[in-house]
């Protein structure tokens, strides 16, 4: 909407080629905005299209046989939805850093840490070996790795999961990007390590004024560290809201997710569960895709297609046609 957004994603649809003729829609009408310096959490169940949406921001969809079908991705004024390879080379790594999903499989197993960092540092203009080395050490210190000189000579298998994830973050910030996309950076790590990695991301944001998109399926974690939350369900962004506002959410799915947190109930108390499974990719019903699991469903939920993304306030969007009736229309 406003000019100051760093990233504007508007009704993006992503398709995958399954066979020569067959296409499968995996992300549909995904929309959200990101302001400079913002830490945005993107959450959704597995298969909701989070990772694919992230990949569309670094131009690596094609490697998975997918492409942006329609919609617009505006980054810093530049349209990226149908960007060419050459355009991506200028952006990926340099303006948008990417921390991939699996910390454990992230770094190339046959390259020493120093070599991987050098690759990240050498995008853009070439630097001398000494410059690269000093920058690599600087980056490792930044992500709080002790004895960086030693780590540079090590292979990924010699590092713990948390350290590997730190190295991946170091690679992502090597070019001082404006935006970092971190796809489930803490999945598979211990809670204590998770807390350290989240602290690190927060520090990176403060020090370099970087915007960060943090992807996760853990609403509790996202709610505690992010400014804004975007919720995805079955390929659609169903709500965008400020992190403190989750309890005032205006979408039944977000509410249900929030209420199914186990720390809200007494031990062995009744857990709020969400009925059933999210609809499978390729078998999405028309209208609201949460309809079959929703307690508030009415005929018009299924008949409105596509569901508009209602703007409730400057920082709150909901894709529920009944949000006013269900939640009393309070802001």
């Amino acid at each position, binding site marked *: 909407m406003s000019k100051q957004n760093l990233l504007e994603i508007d009704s993006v649809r992503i398709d995958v080629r399954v066979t020569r003729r067959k296409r499968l829609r995996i992300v549909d009408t995904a929309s959200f905005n990101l302001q400079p310096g913002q830490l945005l959490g993107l959450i959704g*169940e*597995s*298969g909701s299209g989070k990772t694919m949406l992230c990949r569309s921001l670094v131009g690596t969809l094609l490697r998975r046989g997918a492409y942006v079908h329609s919609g617009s991705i505006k980054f810093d004024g530049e349209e990226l939805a149908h960007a060419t390879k050459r355009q991506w080379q200028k952006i990926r790594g340099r303006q948008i850093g990417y921390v991939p999903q699996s910390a454990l499989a992230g770094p190339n197993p046959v390259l020493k840490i120093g070599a991987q960092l050098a690759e990240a540092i050498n995008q853009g203009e070439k630097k001398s070996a000494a410059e690269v080395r000093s920058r690599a050490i600087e980056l490792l210190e930044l992500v709080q790795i002790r004895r960086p000189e030693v780590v540079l000579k090590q292979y990924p298998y010699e590092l713990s*999961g948390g350290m590997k994830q730190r190295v991946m973050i170091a690679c992502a910030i090597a070019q001082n990007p404006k935006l970092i996309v971190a796809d489930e950076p803490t999945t598979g790590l*211990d*809670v*204590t*390590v*998770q*807390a350290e990695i*989240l602290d690190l991301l927060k520090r990176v944001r403060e020090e370099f004024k970087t915007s960060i998109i943090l992807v996760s*399926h*853990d*609403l*509790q*974690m996202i*709610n*505690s*560290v992010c400014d804004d939350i975007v919720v995805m369900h079955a390929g659609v962004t169903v709500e965008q809201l400020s992190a403190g506002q989750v309890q005032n959410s205006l979408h039944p799915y977000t509410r*249900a*997710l929030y209420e*199914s*947190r*186990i*720390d809200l*109930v007494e*031990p*062995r108390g009744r*857990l*709020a*569960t*969400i009925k059933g*499974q999210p609809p499978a990719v390729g078998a999405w019903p028309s209208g609201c895709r949460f309809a079959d699991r929703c307690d508030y469903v009415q005929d018009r939920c299924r008949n409105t297609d596509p569901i508009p993304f209602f703007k409730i306030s400057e920082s709150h969007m909901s894709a529920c046609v009944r949000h006013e009736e269900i939640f009393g229309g309070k802001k």
Partner: protein
Amino acid sequence: MTRIIDATNLSVTFKSYGYEIPAVKNVEFHLNEGEVVGVVGESGSGKSTLARVLAGLQIPTTGQVLYMGEPIQRGSVTYPGEMRKAVQMVFQDPYSSLNPRMRILNAVVEAIIQHQTRDRAAAEEIALKLLKRMGISETDARKYPNSLSGGQRQRASVARALSAQPKVLIADEPTSAIDQSAQSQLLELFTDLMADGLSIILISHDLGVIRYLSDRVYVMENGVFVESGNTQDIFNKPEERYTQKLIASIPK
């Protein structure tokens, strides 16, 4: 209360390239009948090794495990004969613990034929009933694992474990690979099973799950229990620094 599982002086040491790596060091562990006991700790602390020893999948270097007062190991066999049924395990990863070439129903039927009845038709009936209780419909039961979600697969694994009608269920990180909504469905199922008198050993690094489900908890670090006791007490007044650190790391 009867101690259903009792382990004393348990150690497991792995040998690798001439090094000895102690994974579990002199651990005392017990489980009372009808109780849920949680084991928490970071990766590498020895939780899974302990679970494997208690399930009889790993022979301890020293010490022994007693089931109802009897040692579980006879020669090189663990849980001989009828004893095998009593302790069953659910594994961490629902994607790799089910045979991808076997329909869910058949996977459970095999287990029932092994443990309950030789009659295939009867076994199928029991299996369907069991799967239904786990929230898996007959149509889904006839599918292959790859067409089910992670949560459904995990519930299918629980059904398979229950087909032996065990007294004790050992669950090694049952919720760490599944989504939040699937997690609450699984936890609800566990609460249900507890009401039927099943004892559960719950291994997890998710303190939320432990707090929700377990009566007692053991905190494990580097192969030893640093703290143990009533779940409420440990969460309200953790004494060890390590436990405090774990609890402080939960996102608020």
